[in-house]
């Protein structure tokens, strides 16, 4: 199967063959532990605190099928971003394996990178550069034809609501919502087959949030992409995701379709439960409380 699914002639030297039967994403018993506290130099300088062991991802396993929008729902500090980093070759797991279209993220890193793109909660751009300059940088890295990319940047950004004059102006003057739209456009431009979205709508106003969500759906529908989305927005997860994994303290506590998750906790005679109710029943706390707890630790 040729992976660059749309307008492949625009991707020079980057199309790769993958197993047509392989699943989009397989996370198999993955664990990631970080150690915090003084390192070797700190200890040599007399710092006596013990190094703290933080289990960010704790024996997590799941599979995402092609074309799915898969949600990872949980409070802050529960390992969602770590999971995304493990999938995007930015972190190595301590145990277990992550496979993307059958390719191991550690062993086949170079090939995996050609299949993915990631939009993170903080828009990672050279803030002095314009959206056009930033996106052209991305386009060149991903082997997109520069002439095609220039046309496409204007087309995508205009569709996402950016004015023409903003496309050539420095990004430091843009709102966070605008920057996030440019981040989405950058992902669109490279037409990834697996798009990793790490809280892409956090901090956005409702209007921008809806536009970003529409863009995600469009990417899946028109580019046949598979999407993994982390969020702590219950409504967003409910509306956007085909299946959701609820995570707490680095572990998956439930995984199913939004409807099935709600059915799981539905009780006779009560109003239909929301995902908030599902989270409360499964973890014993409200998402907001869990967020506050994470901020304190």
């Amino acid at each position, binding site marked *: 199967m040729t992976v660059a699914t749309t307008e492949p002639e625009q991707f020079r030297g980057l199309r790769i063959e993958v197993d047509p039967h392989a699943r989009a994403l397989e996370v198999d018993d993955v664990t990631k532990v970080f150690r915090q506290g003084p390192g070797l130099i700190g200890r040599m300088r007399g710092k006596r605190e013990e190094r703290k062991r933080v289990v960010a991802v704790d024996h997590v396993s799941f599979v995402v099928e092609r074309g799915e929008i898969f949600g990872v729902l949980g409070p802050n500090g529960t390992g969602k971003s770590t999971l995304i980093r493990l999938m995007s070759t*930015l972190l190595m797991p301590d145990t277990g394996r992550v496979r993307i279209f059958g390719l191991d993220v550690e062993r086949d890193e170079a090939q995996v990178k050609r299949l993915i793109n990631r939009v993170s909660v903080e828009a990672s751009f050279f803030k002095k550069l314009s959206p056009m300059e930033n996106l052209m940088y991305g386009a060149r890295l991903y082997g997109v034809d520069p002439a095609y990319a220039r046309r496409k940047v204007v087309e995508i950004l205009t569709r996402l609501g950016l004015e023409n004059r903003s496309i050539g102006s420095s990004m430091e003057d843009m709102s966070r919502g605008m920057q996030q739209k440019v981040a989405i456009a950058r992902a669109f431009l490279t037409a990834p087959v697996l798009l990793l979205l790490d809280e892409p709508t956090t901090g956005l106003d409702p209007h921008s949030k809806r536009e970003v969500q529409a863009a995600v759906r469009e990417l899946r529908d028109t580019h046949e992409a598979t999407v993994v989305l982390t969020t702590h927005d219950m409504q967003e997860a409910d509306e956007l995701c085909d299946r959701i994994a609820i995570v707490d303290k680095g572990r998956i506590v439930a995984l199913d379709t939004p409807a099935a998750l709600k059915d799981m906790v539905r009780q006779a005679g009560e109003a239909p439960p929301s995902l908030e109710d599902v989270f409360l029943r499964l973890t014993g706390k409200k998402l907001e409380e869990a967020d506050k707890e994470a901020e304190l630790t």
Partner: protein
Amino acid sequence: MTMAFHELRASYAFVERNINLVKRYWGWELVWMLYTIANSLAVVLIARGANTAVGGQPLSTAQVDTLILFLAIGALVWHYLAVVFQTVSEMISWERWEGTIEYTFMAPVRRGTHMVGTALFSLVYGFAHTAVVLVIVVLAFDLNMSHANYVSASAVLIAGSLSLVGIGIMGAVLPLLYPERGAEMTHVIQAALVLISGVYITASEMPEPLATISIFSPATYVIEGIRSALIDGEGFAELWPTMVGLVASGFLMIPLGVYVFSLGERYAKRTGRLKRSG
């Protein structure tokens, strides 16, 4: 072949991005240029005032001119080498400041491509920057360059740049491993190089152990070679051993730098050091 072509083209992404950054930060570039000019002129002025400062048997005008040229070459060549080293060693620091390190590290290009692109930019940028300062120093001091062999001087400079790129790549691992203080650590390497490389004094005249240590610095040979080319007019016939040595040193330093960096990158990915922005 297609992949090699892609990697080559992708390396231009870093050149173009850095050129765009230079354009956008033009105010800072202007300040940096003025600082460099002031610094270079201050060093060269030492020669102009040598007679007054030392007293005794005065130096002849020709001797003062030679001293001016000696110091000017030291200052300018060191400036060029420092720009090359700094641009390469700061490639990670820049990404950390801007918050783009994860995006760049996730992109489907080899780290070697990233480094080649950065190194290419550093050579062009260093050359252009130094050329401007050179013109101003030559005009300010009316330097006698009648014996200068510019071709062999340029060849020594290019050959010597390779080693500095290699050392810069090794230095770049520091901001990768130490997000908070790594950039400052690269300045320590730079300060050590300026101390041991005979920038303002012939390396062999330095006190021990600096004179012995200077043997191991490629910058020592670049500066000596360029002085021989520009002051004494030496050409390829005299300077080829220096050039061959510098190229050989570059071919050793660059792969060594890439290897050290790859170990650092692996460690950073194991311990989660890519995400901290310092």
